[in-house]
């Protein structure tokens, strides 16, 4: 008797789940769940909930997963069709297949790995140097009035200069070696990290700072237990913004002068009219940029898991 009951309930639920929009489905689902749980045997009701919950969950996950990729995949398909039919010339834009072939060829020869490694190392060292300076200045100016009065105005002034405008000067200073790229990348990431760290420290809840002082925290304790964690959400905003600038600066400085790296790869390819390699370089920049952002986001979610806004 109960088995049949459960079965029919389950069928009804499954029917309700398929085909209807998500919000509606959920409404029906909870309604039916209450009905199901009113059935006498508890186990039976539970099994109904289990079968009912699964399809809805799968639908939500799969839709959220594939929908964002619909547009890019569609664009690539259209592009391939246009290239194959000859509507777009190879000399203007290579076909996606040609780009994939270029990728495969360079991957096998090891050139690609080397170029990506070189560019990645440049990006990271620039981020590390510029980021550390920006972070330390931000903390110092947020905490100390003297330091703020001494350096903040200067930094705010320098910040308004587009750092890429310094390229001619940088070439005069450092030539076209690694130092030039490192300097430009560091300079680029310094300001977003500085501004957001400074802003974060300035906005730490004064009541919490007072509390820390009441409980006898030393300045070091106060920094690591109250000020730094309080500024962290803002510092992460700065970091993610800096990552964007980091890639941008690197691309530009590698295009000016380099004998290795992705920018170099793209520029050499231009000389030989190898459009597919140029496009490959763009794709790699996009992938690296996205990767950096994904890592930063994951780090952010982990470090800020206390914050309701970052809880999964």
């Amino acid at each position, binding site marked *: 008797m109960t088995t049949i009951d459960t079965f029919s309930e389950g069928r009804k639920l499954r029917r309700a789940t398929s085909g209807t929009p998500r919000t509606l489905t959920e409404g029906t689902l909870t309604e039916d769940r209450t009905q199901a749980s009113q059935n006498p045997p508890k186990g039976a009701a539970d099994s109904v909930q289990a079968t009912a919950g699964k399809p809805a969950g799968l639908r939500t996950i799969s839709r959220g997963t594939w929908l964002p990729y619909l547009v890019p995949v569609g664009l690539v398909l259209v592009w391939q069709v246009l290239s194959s039919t000859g509507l777009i010339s190879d000399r203007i834009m290579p076909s996606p297949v040609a780009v994939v072939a270029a990728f495969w060829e360079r991957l096998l020869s090891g050139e690609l790995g080397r170029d990506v490694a070189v560019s990645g190392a440049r990006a990271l060292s620039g981020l590390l140097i510029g980021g550390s300076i920006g972070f330390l200045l931000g903390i110092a100016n947020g905490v100390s009035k003297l330091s703020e009065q001494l350096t903040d105005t200067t930094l705010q002034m320098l910040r308004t200069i587009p750092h890429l405008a310094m390229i001619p000067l940088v070439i005069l200073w450092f030539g076209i070696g690694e130092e030039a790229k490192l300097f430009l990348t560091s300079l680029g990431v310094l300001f977003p990290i500085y501004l957001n760290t400074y802003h974060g420290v300035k906005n730490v809840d004064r009541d919490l700072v007072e*509390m820390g002082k009441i409980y006898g925290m030393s300045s070091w304790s106060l920094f690591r237990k109250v000020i730094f964690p309080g500024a962290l959400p803002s510092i992460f905003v700065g970091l993610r913004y800096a990552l964007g600038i980091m890639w941008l600066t690197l691309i530009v400085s590698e295009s000016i002068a380099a004998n290795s790296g992705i920018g170099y790869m793209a520029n050499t390819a231009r000389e030989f009219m190898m459009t597919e390699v140029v496009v490959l370089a763009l794709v790699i920049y996009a992938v690296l940029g996205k990767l950096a952002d994904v890592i930063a986001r994951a780090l952010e979610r982990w470090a800020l898991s206390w914050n309701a806004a970052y809880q999964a």
Partner: protein
Amino acid sequence: MPVSSYLHPTAMVWDAFELQERAYFPDGTEVRPIAEPPVLPKAPAGLRLRGVEKAFGDNRVLRGIDLDVPAGQFVAIVGKSGCGKSTLLRLLVGLDEPTGGEIDFIDDGGDRVAPDARIVFQEPRLLPWFSVADNVAVGLGDGVPKAFARREAELVLEEVQLSEKAKEWPAKLSGGQRQRVALARALVSRPGLLALDEPLGALDALTRISMQQLLTRVWRELGFTAVLVTHDVTEAVHLADRVIVLDEGQVTLDLAVPQPHPRHHGDPELALLEGRLLAAVLGES
């Protein structure tokens, strides 16, 4: 699945920077305490105030307060907004310096002892990036070994009936629970005096009543001296042994509340006292 707050970077990564946590012999070997001494209940500290004054510029907030609070007493200070009651409390816990007069902490025999006070504010002021237990451990001060601090924190959390929330983030708690964590943090070092600055002011009526009961129980079990600042006369007569009315920086009434604990809402004798107090606060005596 939330990451355990004990494994969180603010709790974990920074532990590497816990400078005072370990001590080393000159030859580099680490000193390991065999067993950390538990924080023992300390004797309650009484108060002796003589001619205490506080002025902010020309504004004389406190105009000569004389007050003796025996160790272990529960005193409530009531008064209108701006009567100086919160200022007085901030002086007691050393958040501000008096511009005149003397504040001494005394023991049972009336001898001066070191100031030993903690304060609970109207808002809990918990660190949102620390677990409940780590927030309570803040009350033990710097340089306390982590394991010991957590054990003490869990003990005092039991006292405020929140042991099961030890590893939660404060954001997950209700307003009343957060205030209980703040209370636990103030009590974890077993202070001789606890100052309460309208600690229940932001809570709803029902939570407030259960918090009053909790406060009374904790006070009777741990035996500290309590100084409560409130604008709620009912709360004052339910919690305190003695209620002081402050008006324009001076004590205008000092009323004993002899009723034994636990007290019940609706007790006619308390209602009578309440009426007298209210009249005094409103200046209708």
